[in-house]
């Protein structure tokens, strides 16, 4: 298996870098249904996984794809699927099941113009709230937004690590522009790639309760077929995994599932700040749009505008403490995203009226240009 990690410097498509990140993270099971602009991930996995003793299955649809990666993960494999908005819509039912059953897996959404089949070959960032709230009920989700081909590799590895550590589905919220971009990717030697594994039971099978936890709130996971008795149901369940249908049990379970992510949010949340130290205006952006935002911020500085960039790496959990903190420093937030204000509303919520929040928005199909963001910063021109 020496060719599992393609150590070296490559000039690689974003979607391919995602597939290589998954393989480097130990993913050996991919189930999917091809869809533009995520198809290149499936193609790469279809070629690479059989070489590595892994399994690639093209399923009949996205519902089944999601079910398959949950099942294989219960058997102990690291698993992934990749899709775009229309496919994510179909996966959401089973993503909810994965959250309820606490099954590690990675779901890639290479966003395109939407709603419906929309713009198959063109960029969009309109699935941010779908990723957050698309499945029914109260839950927390982790979603990462890569801005470069290198990050398609790095964040896919990170997505697996977070999925394993917190026993939860993680969404890689990419976009068509990054997925179809070709750039240099440096893949490190395997020993330099840090991998986290799911917590495993330390008690013998007769003492094991599948959903009993310590203060981490993350239950150790026994794998199918290794001698532990595991009962799994999407119904509200007790520590044994048995259905129990009442308000108290529901409060206990769902509260723990929420707190499991919230409690660990400070170690999950990641963002990058550029030129923020003395900034009076903060541009908030993510994914491909963060690159236009970076150029706009640098150009604004040349024009005497004290602008900085807050680039979201984890879109979810949203770094609301940091926005609250910045509300005491900056006089304006400008949110740039290829949707009609999905993260802008989050910034408004966290800023809570302390600071005005403006937006640079598009519907999809084209990128937001640096000039379009720069124009929104001119209100701060000295």
């Amino acid at each position: 298996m020496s060719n599992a990690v393609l150590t070296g410097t490559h000039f690689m498509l974003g979607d391919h870098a995602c597939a290589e990140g998954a393989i480097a993270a130990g993913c050996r099971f991919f189930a999917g249904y091809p869809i533009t602009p995520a198809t290149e991930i499936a193609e790469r996995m279809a070629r690479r996984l059989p070489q590595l003793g892994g399994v690639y299955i093209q399923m009949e649809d996205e519902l089944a794809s999601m079910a398959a990666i949950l099942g294989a993960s219960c058997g102990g494999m690291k698993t992934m699927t990749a899709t775009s908005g229309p496919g994510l819509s179909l996966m959401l039912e089973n993503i909810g099941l994965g959250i309820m059953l606490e099954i590690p897996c990675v779901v890639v959404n290479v966003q395109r113009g939407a709603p419906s089949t929309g713009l198959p070959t063109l960029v969009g960032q309109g699935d941010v709230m779908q990723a957050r709230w698309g499945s029914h009920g109260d839950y927390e989700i982790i979603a990462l937004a890569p801005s470069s081909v290198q990050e398609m590799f790095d964040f896919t590895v990170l997505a697996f690590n977070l999925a394993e550590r917190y026993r939860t589905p993680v969404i890689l919220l990419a976009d068509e522009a990054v997925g179809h971009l070709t750039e240099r990717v440096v893949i490190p030697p395997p020993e330099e790639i840090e991998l986290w594994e799911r917590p495993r039971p330390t008690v013998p099978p007769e003492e094991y309760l599948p959903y009993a936890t310590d203060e981490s709130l993350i239950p150790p996971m026994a794998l199918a077929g290794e001698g532990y008795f595991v009962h799994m149901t999407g119904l509200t369940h007790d520590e044994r995994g048995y259905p129990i249908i009442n308000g108290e049990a529901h409060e206990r379970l769902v509260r723990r599932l929420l707190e499991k992510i919230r409690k660990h949010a400070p170690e999950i949340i990641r963002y990058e700040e550029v030129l923020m130290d003395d900034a009076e205006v903060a541009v908030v952006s993510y994914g491909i749009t963060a690159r236009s935002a970076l150029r706009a911020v640098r150009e604004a500085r040349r024009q005497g505008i004290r602008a900085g960039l807050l680039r979201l790496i984890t879109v979810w959990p949203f770094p609301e403490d940091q926005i609250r903190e910045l509300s005491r420093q900056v006089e304006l937030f400008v949110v740039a995203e290829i949707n009609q204000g999905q993260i802008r509303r989050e910034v408004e919520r966290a800023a809570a009226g302390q600071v005005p929040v403006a937006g640079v928005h598009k519907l999809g199909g084209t990128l937001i240009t640096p000039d379009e963001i720069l124009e929104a910063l001119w209100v701060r021109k000295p």
Partner: protein
Amino acid sequence: MEIQFAGFGGQGIILAGYLLGKAIAVYEGKSASMTQSYGPEARGGACSSGVVVSRNPEELVDYPRVTRPDILVVMSQEAFSTYLPRLKPEGTLLYDADLVNPESIPEGVTAYPVPATRLAETEIGKRIVANVVMLGALVVLTRVVSPEALREAVRTTVKPDYVELNLKALEVGMAYAQNLLQPQEV
């Protein structure tokens, strides 16, 4: 620095962009991004690829799409009409002299006719390497990348059986361009 290749599907427009981007990003250690655009047709539809090179090799290209190319390489009349207005006023244009009739080239633009498809047929016997002939000419005419970096990109990208063929295509393009640059004898 922005370089745009354009033509129709089947001419290797995207491979040309990939080889140039790889030569710059991997073998010269600069920061470069390559994008592509094509229609639903496998062959014959409008097709383009772009390479953006960062001014600072340490920094990621901030906006990865070509907006105003410094260098434009066109291999079809349609591509010429579509992309010429976007070329920078002092930009460089390379066009396939047998496929493009350059009606009006703005003053300030340096234009080079390169009959890449004909050279590929007559010198190598395979028109499919016209894109790489064009790349060879591009290297000599613009010095956007070193010939050795481009050779290395060819060696590590095309299938082993086709490496020699493509390296030869590079040399044909380079020789033609060197000839173009010779002062004309009176």
